[in-house]
């Protein structure tokens, strides 16, 4: 690959003018990346749609199932439970994380040394894998030997993972603990890019801090908010690792979100067809949310920020 590309580039640049030279040599450079992406991302994306109409236990032969998988999943109350939980976690996580990371971002964008030092420490949770975070929180939540007794706050000594509502709230808290630092970083960058002259002008006009925040900082952060929200919302479809290790979907099905539901149906219950139906639903929701947030931004430049994390 590499030597042939060199030849081509050399030949063409010798024989012709600018435009044609680039036209013939450069596209080859995209082939390796394109190959990997097509084979291991695009083909599976098509494959999941095909498998949603297949009858497969994960080991044996693959048969056709027609509409059966779709019919069985769409009439299964488990799907609606998982959908509801997924949206619940998504919305509550957004409501919790956005104000915290926005304010922390504004705060850490300030110029004082100690703020920079705090920002270093804020980053720590991002270094831990979701598995590590989940395992650590299990220990922390031990009613007898965990944080609650250490802090002398006995009301915190609950059976957090045993009560459905508590487990759901806990999942949302741990997600915030792990991901607020990342969004704080995004907002910190956004705030630093706001032209200082805007604040100076506002100051001269006599606008106070709060007015400045609502009339300059917030509007200027519009695209940052959209970027961060897109990452948060699309990313919330994929909080698989954390919930898998922390609660395994329980107690009962109280934290069984879509991604987990897909895994458990497919790799535990060996129902790859129905699991693929859930996967298709996940893709559709992800794309729809991403497009919706794009529209809010009114710019396709934001297409850049859709990563599912």
């Amino acid at each position, binding site marked *: 690959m590499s030597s042939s590309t060199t030849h081509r580039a050399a030949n063409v640049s010798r024989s012709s003018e600018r435009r044609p030279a680039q036209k013939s040599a450069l596209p080859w*450079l995209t082939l390796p990346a394109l190959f990997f992406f097509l084979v291991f991302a695009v083909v599976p994306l098509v494959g999941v749609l095909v498998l949603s109409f297949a009858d497969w236990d994960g080991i044996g032969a693959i048969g056709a199932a027609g509409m059966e998988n779709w019919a069985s999943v769409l009439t299964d109350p488990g799907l609606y439970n998982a959908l509801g939980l997924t949206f619940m976690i998504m919305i509550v996580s957004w409501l919790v994380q956005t104000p915290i990371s926005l304010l922390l971002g504004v705060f850490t964008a300030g110029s004082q040394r100690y703020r920079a030092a705090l920002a270093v420490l804020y980053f720590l949770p991002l270094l831990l894998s979701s598995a590590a975070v989940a395992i650590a929180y299990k220990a922390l939540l031990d009613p007898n030997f965990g944080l609650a007794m250490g802090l002398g706050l006995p009301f915190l000594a609950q059976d957090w993972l045993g009560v459905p509502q508590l487990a759901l709230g806990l999942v949302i808290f741990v997600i915030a603990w792990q991901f607020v630092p990342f969004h704080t970083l995004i907002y910190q960058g956004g705030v*630093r890019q706001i032209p200082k002259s805007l604040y100076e002008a506002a100051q001269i006009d006599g606008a106070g801090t709060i007015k400045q925040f609502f009339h300059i900082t917030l509007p200027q952060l519009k695209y940052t908010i959209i970027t961060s929200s897109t990452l948060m919302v699309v990313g919330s479809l994929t909080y698989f690792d954390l919930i898998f290790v922390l609660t395994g979907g329980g107690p009962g099905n109280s934290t069984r979100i879509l991604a987990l539901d897909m895994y458990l149906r497919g790799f535990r219950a060996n129902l790859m067809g129905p699991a693929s139906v859930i996967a298709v639903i996940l893709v559709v929701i992800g794309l729809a949310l991403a497009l919706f947030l794009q529209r809010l931004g009114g710019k396709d430049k934001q297409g850049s920020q859709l*990563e599912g994390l």
Partner: protein
Amino acid sequence: MSTVLKSDRKAAPDNPPAHSVKARQSLGTRVKRLNIPGGLGGWIWLAVIIVPVYYIVITSLKTSEGYFGQNPLAPPTAPTLENYQLVLEANFAAYFMNSVIVTLGSVIPTVLISFMAAFAIVRGHGRYLKFVNGMFLMGLAIPLQATIIPIYLMIIRLNLYDSILAIMLPSIAFAIPLTVLILSNFIRDVPNELFESMRLDGCSEWQTMWRLALPLTRPAIVTVAIYNGLHVWNGFLLPLVLTQSPELRVLPLALWTFQGEFSVNIPAVLASVVLSTLPILVIYVLGRRQLVSGLTAGFSK
């Protein structure tokens, strides 16, 4: 994003002459006023972050008597490394090496092929390159989880199930879109005159790519390498689904199994958490500035 970077660069040298002393003073007061609620919130959040981290570290140094006997937040009276020894003896080194191989084996090819693609997309013209770029952008919205079943099927059919390569291939594919995006935005910021002068000196595009674009894109390359590395290092689903043998476990998976093995020995479980995070912590300490500034430029606006 590229425009953001440009304006950022422009703003930096302009700053000192553009602001009078008075203006700067007024800016200072703005910052100070935000300080009170912001500062309070900042310190509260610090506690939220640090207390669990502190608990993990001190508990991992306690004996089981210390764990059951003392206040959970009190430092260990007799700190011990025996939990670490226990974890290290449980094949930790092998899991660590698996993680290193998977991470390097994914990140190096990803960065290399993404850089080539990004260079072509920025420097080239034509419908094909536009299409490729559009496809990578679309790829940003595909959740990895949703494609795990067909990936599992493909890996079985390719006879790669239960191998390190099985984890690497999809990891590379899913890292490409964002890597191409960030790198192409940086390459776009290289002034065109530099490319022109390389061309006039008789360099081919291939030479221009390695001798001009690569060195100038180095900060971005370090950023995407660390970012992708962090993702692969902490990845859980692909190893869980695509491997089976204990000797192929990567660290996050090993942590999960330690949790089962040492379920009564919480200090040992937490020692394994600390051990699995240490290498990342070292890299973070070394490359922090680069990582944070790169991520900031890569994601804001």
